[in-house]
């Protein structure tokens, strides 16, 4: 019987040599006359073990990693298809604690299936959510999503059901569904992993959104820096369309839903939803003033449901398993799970999907295994470049939207970037201002000009003029209160938190 060998096609694995490993394995299989099927799966999210090669056995999938091209001959010599004696063997994949201790709902299939195989998707519960949605009224779909407690996973955490209701009740037509896949936050890669590792889940979620709000056209706006995700999405769309899961007469009904993938141009601010709409319309990505809400006057001036990749990819399981199933995970007003991403100077970097409610310390120590360098942890930035830097003393904070808001921080898109004790927090504050200056769309003066002034003020502080610190704080206030979108209004988060928690790096007594 043919033995299945899995070598990920996820770009994170490719960046560590997976393509060469897959080719070497294929050569060995031919040279040895073996009967094997090579499957290019998504990534399990155990990024530090990539390329993670798996072998399907009667006892389940057995993992080996990290595998380099030089390890391939020895794997075959050790008969890794039937034996676990090779030193790189990690045992049954599902029993690896990092994976076993997760609650994978949105990422249930990622790393398990062949992302481009619709049959594999269907065999693993795919399109059950859409099947059910097609039997429900739009109101009932929105009720289900609302009752699940799902909140926008892009970072703003707005209730998805409320947003969809607004679009559904808008009178104007046509309406659009736009997936915000412009995942520009450093430290985040869950959107990328999902698009590369389970693209049909996103297509299914968007199709359900289309049924709910009354849209027949969807757009995925993603990053040109994600070429592998773009390719995976386009391939999945072609397959889904050919098999009647997209396009006219969806699953034999009278409904139509089509999806087009659009790539941005390397502008971070286009992750802001109104700038993204401008970009989709073929314009410069300049932020729009709200109101009007995009739900009422969004893409091309029409009612538009804008949701993040993870929000949309979570919708199918909510429809398939019911709102209560999803709502049972989580704490307080943060229901369900969030795919956290452990990044930066971390020993075990990767994707950890957990119910809200664990602490930052649990995430970093129990999953992350501390710093990669082995040096003491000094700072953690949660929520991307606009998120606060937290010191060791704050690691007890519970990962839910409200607990983070209470300490002046954000969970955002779930990215956790770890720094060891070599980090200079004044440099990080300067970088936050520099990044804002580089990426500001220019609409709001405090953001456009204030960021450049901010770099200059931090430079003076670094040069030893601590009297400039109050000026930097004033500037942060101006940015926060005088900017339309998060670019300007949240750049103060990393800057202020650096000042508050790491005063010694600014030449002032430790806080």
């Amino acid at each position, binding site marked *: 019987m043919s033995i299945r060998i899995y070598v990920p096609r996820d770009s994170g694995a490719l*960046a560590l040599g997976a393509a060469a490993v897959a080719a070497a394995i294929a050569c060995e299989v031919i040279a040895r006359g073996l009967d094997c099927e090579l499957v290019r799966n998504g990534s399990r999210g155990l990024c530090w073990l990539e390329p993670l090669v798996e072998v399907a056995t009667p006892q389940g999938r057995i993992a080996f990693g990290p595998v380099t091209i030089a390890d391939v001959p020895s794997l075959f010599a050790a008969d890794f298809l039937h034996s676990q004696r090779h030193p790189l063997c990690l045992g049954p994949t599902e029993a690896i604690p990092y994976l076993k201790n997760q609650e994978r709902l949105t990422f249930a299939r990622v790393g398990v299936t062949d992302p481009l195989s619709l049959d594999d998707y269907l065999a693993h519960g795919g399109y059950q959510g859409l099947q059910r949605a097609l039997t429900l009224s739009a109101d009932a779909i929105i009720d289900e999503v609302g009752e699940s407690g799902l909140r926008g996973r892009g970072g703003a955490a707005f209730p998805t059901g409320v947003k969809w209701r607004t679009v559904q009740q808008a009178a104007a037509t046509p309406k659009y569904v736009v997936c915000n896949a412009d995942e520009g936050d450093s430290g985040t*890669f869950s959107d990328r992993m999902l698009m590369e590792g389970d693209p049909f889940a996103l297509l299914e979620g968007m199709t359900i959104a289309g049924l709910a709000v009354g849209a027949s056209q969807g757009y995925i706006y993603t990053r040109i820096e994600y070429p592998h995700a773009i390719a995976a999405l386009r391939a999945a769309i072609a397959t889904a369309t050919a098999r009647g899961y997209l396009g006219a007469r969806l699953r034999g009904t009278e409904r139509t839903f089509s999806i087009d993938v659009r790539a941005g141009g390397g*502008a971070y601010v286009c992750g802001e939803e109104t700038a993204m709409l401008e970009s989709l319309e073929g314009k410069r*990505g300049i932020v729009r003033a709200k109101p009007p809400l995009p739900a009422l006057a969004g893409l091309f001036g029409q009612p538009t449901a804008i949701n993040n990749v993870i929000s949309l990819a979570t919708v199918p399981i909510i429809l398939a398993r019911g709102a209560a199933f999803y709502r049972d995970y989580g704490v307080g007003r943060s229901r369900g799970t969030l795919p956290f991403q452990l*990044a930066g100077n971390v020993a075990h970097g990767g994707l950890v999907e957990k119910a809200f409610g664990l602490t930052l310390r649990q995430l970093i120590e129990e999953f992350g295994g501390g710093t990669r360098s082995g040096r003491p942890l000094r700072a953690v930035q949660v929520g991307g*470049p606009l998120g606060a830097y937290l010191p060791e003393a704050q690691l007890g904070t519970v990962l839910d939207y409200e607990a983070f808001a209470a300490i002046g921080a954000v969970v955002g898109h779930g990215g956790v970037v770890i720094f060891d004790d070599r980090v200079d927090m004044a440099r990080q504050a300067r970088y936050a201002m520099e990044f804002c200056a580089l990426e500001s769309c220019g609409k709001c003066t405090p953001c456009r000009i204030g960021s450049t002034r901010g770099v200059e003020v931090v430079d003076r502080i670094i040069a030893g003029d601590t009297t400039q610190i109050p000026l930097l704080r004033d500037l942060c206030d101006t940015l926060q209160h005088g900017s339309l979108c998060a670019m300007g209004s949240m750049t103060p988060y990393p800057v202020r938190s650096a000042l508050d928690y790491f005063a010694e790096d600014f030449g002032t007594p430790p806080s």
Partner: protein
Amino acid sequence: MLETLAGPTLQTVERLIAAKRQLPGALLPLLHDIQEALGFVPPAAVPLLATALNRSRAEVHGVLTYYHYFRQQPAGQHVLRICRAEACQANGAEALLEHARRALGCTDHETTADGAFTLEPVYCLGQCACGPALWIDADELHARMTPEKLDALIAEKRSAT
């Protein structure tokens, strides 16, 4: 005076525009197609795009120059994009970028004297668990980069060209 496009370049641009001009919000897809085909978007393509999309030349120029990714001059044979966002910084991205500048003898956004490499800083490639990361050519990514691995990559690319 703006140069005009001629010959095969003109034909390529016209063909690409004709294929997508009817798309809603066609400008970014067209700029991507032109850059993919030619390696850059010639300023002389701006009036053609403006006419086809019924936009002003100023608007098209504004879009072309707003987005970091689009370039108006040819790049080197290999565009080397090194991530300098926070997660990669935590693993030495600034030192890697500095090493690249020295190794290539050019600074950010510049092309090496022999035309082999263009160096671009980028802000996140989604490889944040295994930084520092870089992106070269169409879709080739490298994670956990070191100055030594970068030297090897540069040598490999040079010998292949």
